[in-house]
């Protein structure tokens, strides 16, 4: 028990928590935007892979870090365009299209990787984003180094989460977007286009997922390797449910999840790790996500028109 307490009060632990949370925050907000507009985006896992690769590849081929983030975002948006074209105007199964987009995006990434770097055994590293401590704030004990001594991409993640909450609940656009996911016929009656709103939400959301992926290569691991996204996309879908489709709660969920993930990594190195196989620790985050889903699904208010294609003129 003392070991766990020691871990929980250390600043390095919380720094790691925020670092683990950042990519989840981007992707969870991206998924949340899609789902609030009524579209389940199962392309998330593959889009994160694309983003991770595109951002890394852009920097590796000589682009700056921020242009690299932009490239990642655009590549995610391209797959978002594909997803939304099939699911919104054509109204195809969001499950099947989403899985198809994940498979296609992952395959496209691996294919391009092999084409671009045919002979490498270990992928080249890039110069990643470096920590940029916020003056004054970063000197607060424990919280300072954890929250305000991160890379700029983490600050961008905070901003994206705050902006998502603000736009969804405080602007006419957000109202229209939420309405598209609750009662699309009413949106259409107001003279707004459900198709445009939903497609826009999926494209923007997919862009954010890709930036989440790019965080992994540009701010965490400094390199791209296969399987690096490793189910994070699916976990973000669980986080959206856990957060009851609200940005604030979902962000809190991402923080809790990250804390748990950071804790299990550290517990592997303690006395407990010598008795329990390391696979059990690695399973915990996935098991926790399932548990969170089971607990939260009962009273969650699912957007009423989630996964319901909108067909103008149909009754």
């Amino acid at each position, binding site marked *: 028990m003392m070991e766990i307490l020691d871990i929980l009060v250390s600043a390095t632990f919380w720094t790691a928590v925020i670092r683990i949370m950042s990519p989840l925050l981007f992707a969870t907000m991206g998924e949340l935007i899609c789902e609030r507009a009524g579209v389940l985006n199962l392309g998330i896992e593959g889009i994160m892979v694309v983003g991770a690769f595109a951002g890394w590849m852009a920097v590796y081929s000589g682009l700056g870090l921020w242009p690299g983030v932009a490239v990642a975002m655009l590549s995610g948006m391209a797959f978002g365009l594909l997803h939304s074209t099939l699911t919104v105007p054509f109204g195809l199964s969001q499950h*099947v*299209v989403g899985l198809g987009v994940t498979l296609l995006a992952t395959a496209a990434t691996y*294919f391009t990787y092999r084409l671009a770097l045919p002979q490498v055994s270990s992928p080249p590293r890039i110069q990643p984003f470096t920590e940029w401590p916020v003056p004054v704030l970063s000197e607060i004990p424990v919280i300072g180094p954890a929250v305000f001594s991160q890379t700029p991409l983490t600050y961008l993640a905070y901003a994206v989460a705050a902006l998502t909450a603000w736009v969804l609940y405080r602007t006419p656009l957000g109202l229209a977007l939420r309405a598209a996911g609750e009662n699309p016929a009413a949106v259409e009656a107001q003279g707004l286009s459900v198709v445009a709103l939903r497609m826009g939400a999926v494209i923007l959301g997919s862009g954010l997922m890709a930036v989440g992926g790019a965080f992994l290569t540009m701010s965490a691991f400094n390199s791209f390797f296969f399987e690096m996204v490793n189910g994070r996309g699916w976990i973000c879908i669980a986080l959206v449910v856990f957060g009851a489709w609200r940005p604030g709660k979902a962000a809190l969920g991402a923080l809790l999840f990250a804390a748990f993930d950071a804790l299990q990594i550290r517990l592997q190195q303690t006395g407990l790790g010598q008795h329990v196989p390391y696979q059990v620790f690695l399973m915990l985050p996935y098991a926790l996500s399932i548990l969170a889903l089971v607990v939260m699904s*009962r009273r969650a208010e699912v957007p009423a028109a989630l996964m319901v294609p909108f067909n103008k003129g149909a009754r």
Partner: protein
Amino acid sequence: MRLEPIPNPTLGRRLGPPAAALGVTVLFAMALAWVAGADPLAVLGLIVKGAVGSKFALLETLNRATPLIFTGLAVAVAFRAKLWNIGAEAQLYLGAVVTVLLGTGALSWPAPALLPVLGLAAALAGALTLLGPAWAKTRLGVDEVVTTLLLNFIVLLFVSYLLEGPMKDPMGMGWPKSRRLIAEARLPRIVEGLRLHWGFALALIAAVLVWLVQTRTTFGYAMRAVGHNARAARFAGIPVTSVTLATALLSGSLAGLAGFSEVAGLKGNLTLDLSPGFGYTGIIVAMLALLHPLGVVVAALFVAGIFVGADSMSRAAEVPSYIADMLLASALLLVVLALPFTRFRLRWR
């Protein structure tokens, strides 16, 4: 833009769009080959030759198709009832685990008694793996897409633990692999001298059985009714919850059999790379087959041929074998896109 139903679609109307989708897929593959700097036609030729060009290639394709028929059936059965089972990978692995658990000497029976028991046990393991998420779906309203997906990761870590711990082969030179099955637990070859095991025949039988169940039984009718409109089905007196759970048992056991067939028929032991994503590829197989059980056999052969052919092609030409994955994922999306056009026409108004 809207879709307008066509009252009585002609045969050409029903077959044209999917055929066009496959045509576009082939063009896409040629474009990829061209991007990779190879001669598109030569690449296509190499893929076909690598898939069916020799007796060896053909047998390799049939072997690769075997697990895909099982996982494709598992997905087709579940998707037909709108049960989104994305966890065939996990079900396959647990089927394989049980096969190894019982088949490495725990039961030393003669083959005719042992093999059916192993198959049934593997099917049961797969079925129980899906029962949890299906139960959570029907009872608690938990979306099964995410639970089955996350279970894949948990089960793979569990298998990794087994292979490094209790099930590790002491003679395995430290590699994480299980002991080999005893001779009685191995599925024999269909024809002596040809590298094709009885798992393939079993897969074909399973496809026919699933087809019979779906088209000739009340349960099959209930499954389709639940998938088509669960509310209407409930109104018509169909016990939707039990039908969903029974569908999960059927789907999971089919995926579990894939694990049994791979271990007992092909590999002889369990390793962490037993399945290069057969569970996920099963989704492509099922969708290309339009969820038809007999179509699954054709689709699995096609998909297996693409994989085997692309592997062989990438050794000859400088095109990454991931071209197969791209080709199949785009085929999936294109076929799904093509389907509405068999019954609707597009109106730009």
